[in-house]
């Protein structure tokens, strides 16, 4: 049996000193809240009902705090994954007042290459990763051509998964990681597919390198990436056998979006804008784009091709005749240029700007962002369509807007956000190195929360609306994960959730312990009734301001670990 699976009793330390031992009064006190609240079915034996008197069938939209917290809390929770212990001091050094600091923080975050990232660099350097710096052809050759077995083939994506956690937790380039997550979902591929596992680090590198730069460049690199060409079948789309899968999602999901789709209709009937461009697309545009992309394939070793995984254009498979796409003629015999024109027309279409701007606002502000900020961001996006800073400047418009700064709790944390922000706040000793001893146990638990990395099967990507993430699977399984984490031990029997050791000396009473960890995890005060609840939990029958034997009594230490998990499980921690 691994230590992590041992019953707690086996590792209990010496009994409490007699004066601190919980007598019957203390135990009763500890159970008081559950009995009085008549809610804990285990204690009371009551029946539980999903439908009961006085409870509505459907919830109504009722968001939390009317007044947003300070700009710091908004910035670190919505431009990244929450506060890492020690971050506030760095924030304060950014300027003389909150506004200056906020502006400086945004300006710093949109230029990740200038950010010194020592802690992450040290950790990744010691992680034993061997595939993350390989380029596409090295990955293809080492893990496909010369690969043998699933373990070698899939090592690249498994390293990517560990690195994703490591970066989100420890990297100072928080906005970059948020943008990697955004684009990975926007251009969603099923990473664990046979044709993706071995090249996945390259997918992420392409996205990370371009996540603030030019949209057309990013679009083109992804459209021509072997993972996408396989995922959406274009690698096999030929003039004699066109396959519309990729072309459809290219238009519907990657560029113009379904919001600019007029369905099945006559392309000539679509109204035109001032530049004589159709304002929307119809199915016929999808079919014409399909023809334009025929022959866009992969150097996969098929006859006459190299076998290195790079993009390959096969003119013999390309439909050479004239096409009409989005109101433009693609002349006959244009070869690969047909597809290039399609990407250019799509990237430049005003509808694409609106769609991308709306998605970015949905990610960073709210599920239903004000049209004013969407329009402003879209205008910037469209204006900078040839700029290498197109996405960066669009983001700056969004992040520096009043809409961003004045909005709170319209978004909630998804499971990845919950776990990462809990680990940032606590700096708990979970490990992401290759073959860290219980990392598989972590993923076994994490993957049940509904957001296993790189596994979303359909090209629409992860939902970005709170309604999808507040159902009971993600909530219960994320609670359960935090509970598991609070009790997990490493190979030598030490708790990974090492919050006892991280509680400063002098923080001894229930009130002090709660206040310290609430501030460290949430970075803001709790409602007094919530604080009382936590203090009640922590004191377990002792006085709120009596010193507890923290560090010398295993029951007390277990309670501290459980308390910090409780803070991470409380509703406020989901706000962002």
């Amino acid at each position, binding site marked *: 049996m691994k230590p992590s699976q041992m019953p707690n009793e086996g590792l209990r330390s010496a009994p409490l000193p007699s004066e601190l031992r919980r007598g019957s009064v203390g135990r009763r006190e500890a159970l008081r809240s559950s009995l009085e609240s008549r809610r804990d079915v285990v204690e009371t034996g009551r029946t539980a009902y999903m439908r009961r008197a006085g409870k509505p069938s459907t919830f109504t939209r009722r968001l939390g705090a009317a007044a947003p917290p300070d700009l710091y809390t908004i910035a670190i929770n919505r431009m990244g994954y929450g506060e890492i212990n020690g971050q506030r001091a760095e924030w304060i050094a950014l300027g003389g007042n909150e506004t200056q600091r906020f502006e400086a923080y945004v300006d710093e975050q949109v230029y990740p290459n200038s950010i010194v990232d020592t802690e992450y660099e040290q950790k990744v350097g010691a992680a034993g990763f061997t595939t993350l710096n390989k380029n596409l052809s090295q990955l293809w050759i080492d893990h496909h051509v010369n690969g043998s077995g699933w373990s070698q083939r899939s090592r690249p994506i498994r390293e990517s998964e560990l690195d994703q956690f490591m970066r989100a937790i420890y990297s100072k380039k928080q906005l970059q990681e948020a943008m990697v997550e955004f684009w990975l979902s926007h251009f969603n591929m099923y990473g664990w597919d046979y044709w993706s596992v071995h090249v996945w680090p390259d997918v992420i590198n392409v996205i990370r390198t371009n996540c603030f730069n030019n949209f057309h460049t990013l679009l083109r690199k992804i459209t021509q990436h072997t993972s996408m060409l396989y995922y959406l079948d274009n690698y096999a789309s030929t003039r004699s056998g066109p396959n519309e899968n990729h072309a459809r999602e290219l238009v519907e999901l990657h560029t113009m979006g379904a919001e600019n789709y007029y369905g099945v209709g006559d392309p000539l009937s679509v109204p035109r804008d001032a530049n004589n461009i159709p304002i929307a697309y119809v199915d016929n545009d999808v079919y014409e784009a399909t023809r334009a992309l025929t022959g866009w394939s992969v150097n996969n070793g098929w006859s006459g091709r190299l076998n290195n995984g790079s993009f390959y254009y096969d003119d013999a498979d390309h439909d050479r005749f004239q096409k009409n796409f989005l109101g433009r003629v693609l002349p006959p015999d244009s070869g690969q240029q047909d597809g290039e024109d399609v990407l250019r027309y799509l990237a430049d279409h005003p509808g694409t700007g609106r769609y991308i701007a709306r998605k970015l606002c949905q990610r960073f502000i709210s599920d239903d962002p004000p049209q004013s900020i969407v329009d402003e961001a879209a205008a910037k996006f469209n204006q900078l369509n040839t700029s290498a800073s197109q996405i960066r400047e669009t983001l700056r418009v969004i992040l520096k807007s009043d809409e961003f700064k004045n909005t709170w709790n319209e978004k909630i944390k998804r499971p990845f956000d919950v776990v990462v922000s809990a680990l940032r706040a606590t700096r708990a000793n979970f490990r992401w190195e290759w073959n860290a001893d219980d990392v598989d146990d972590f993923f076994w638990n994490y993957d049940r929360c*509904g957001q296993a990395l790189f596994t979303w099967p359909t090209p629409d990507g992860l939902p970005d609306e709170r309604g999808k993430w507040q159902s009971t699977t993600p909530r219960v399984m994320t609670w*359960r994960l935090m509970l598991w984490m609070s009790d997990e031990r490493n190979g030598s029997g030490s708790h990974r959730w090492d919050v006892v050791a991280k509680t400063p000396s002098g923080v001894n009473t229930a009130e002090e312990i709660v206040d310290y960890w609430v501030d460290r995890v949430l970075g803001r005060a709790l409602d007094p009734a919530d604080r009382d609840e936590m203090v009640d939990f922590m004191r377990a029958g002792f006085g709120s301001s009596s010193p507890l034997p923290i560090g010398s009594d295993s029951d007390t230490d277990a309670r501290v670990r459980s308390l910090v998990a409780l803070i991470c499980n*409380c509703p406020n921690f989901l706000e962002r």
Partner: protein
Amino acid sequence: MSTSRRSFMVGCSAAIASLGGARFKSLTFGAAPGDDTLVVLFLRGGIDGLSLVCPTNHNDRGLYEQARPDIAIPLSGGNSALGIGQGFGMHRSAAPLRNLLLDGNLAVVHACGMMNNANRSHFDAQEFMELGTPGTRTTFSGWLSRHLETLGLPNNVPLPAVAIGSLQQTSLRGSIEAVNMNSINDFNLNRGPSQWRTQHRSALRNLVENGSSEIHTTCQQALDAVDVVELNAAGGYSPANGANYPGGSLGDHFRAIAQMIKLGLGLRVAAIDFGGWDTHNGQGDNGGGYFSQRVGELSQALEAFYTDLDGSGANDFIQNTTVVVQSEFGRRLRQNANRGTDHGYGNSMLVMGGSVNGGIYGQFPGLATGQLFDQADLDVTTDYRQVFSEIVVRRFGNGDIDTVFPGYASEYVNVGPLGIVQGTDVPISLGPPMFGDSFESGDDTEWDVVVGS
């Protein structure tokens, strides 16, 4: 909201309302309308309905073979289609479904979909269907949520709805009565330092009840769900009648639903998914391959579920259970060059249960170019809401079609039930204002119409 119509709804299902204080367990054995469970299985990705149920003779057979030289379901050989009458055959791997059909327990509805709302986007089409408002995406709640809300359920129902999967289906969007879970076994909070688990849970309960925000409300829902599952569904489960669920998630999920039905927790609706139908590439030649395997798993799971619930007397659960199998659209008539099919339009729906009048329903519009939608796809001749409305009305006694499918009630009154399920046609409420307060007037009779037999 529509709760203002409650007294009307209670009138429709007085038998249930009068049992409000009774143990819920007894209800599942009763025959009162509304005691049913509706299981909606959504086949994500757009199943190729023309491979599941194919034409076997007449003019359409020739057109079908011509359009699908490699992937047409053959009429001879080991993978030949199994005749179900009226010139149609079922995929060989769906043999269990054909048996259910011939026994009168499964209905095929041809050429279903969103009438007048063709959309070849998976994600739009799924969302429109599950919201129950084709063409409108701003609807707040899913159609199953509104069905639950207008069902006239008594208070204190342990588990009126489950949504199986990692995320709650859009058809149950907005419902705080639903339990969303992947697996009964994992769905608990039995982790963390063992000496403080109980206190952690009770403190968490107090924290989530100390607020009424959306986060608090949905956290309460989640803790309620843990309580319900822990109190009722813990422990093992052995299927009855030799039911043999296939390995894999679909079999597991149907098994879990069967368990919950038998526990008598008041389960009214269950949403469940089975993906992998977006067969643009290599769907399988001559009735074999990938599609065949997928249909095999689907059929085996449905058959096992039917068998499991098909007891006698107090164990006759299938009489009050209806399973509907739907998908967002069908696929193109013509195969593509990768021996797959691209997105299409009309599709088959399946309805299975002990109160189903087995057979073939709907009108097959034909496969000649002039009969196809957009000259490419099987057309839609039956709105999917007609099928669901009939079940809502006849199996649940819920006539509030206007709330369940806003804007569709008068159309339903026009077309009436197809006769797929047994039951009584209750008055259909036609409006006026969708979520208005008009019921307060007390005079609803002027907009109630009885349709069907």
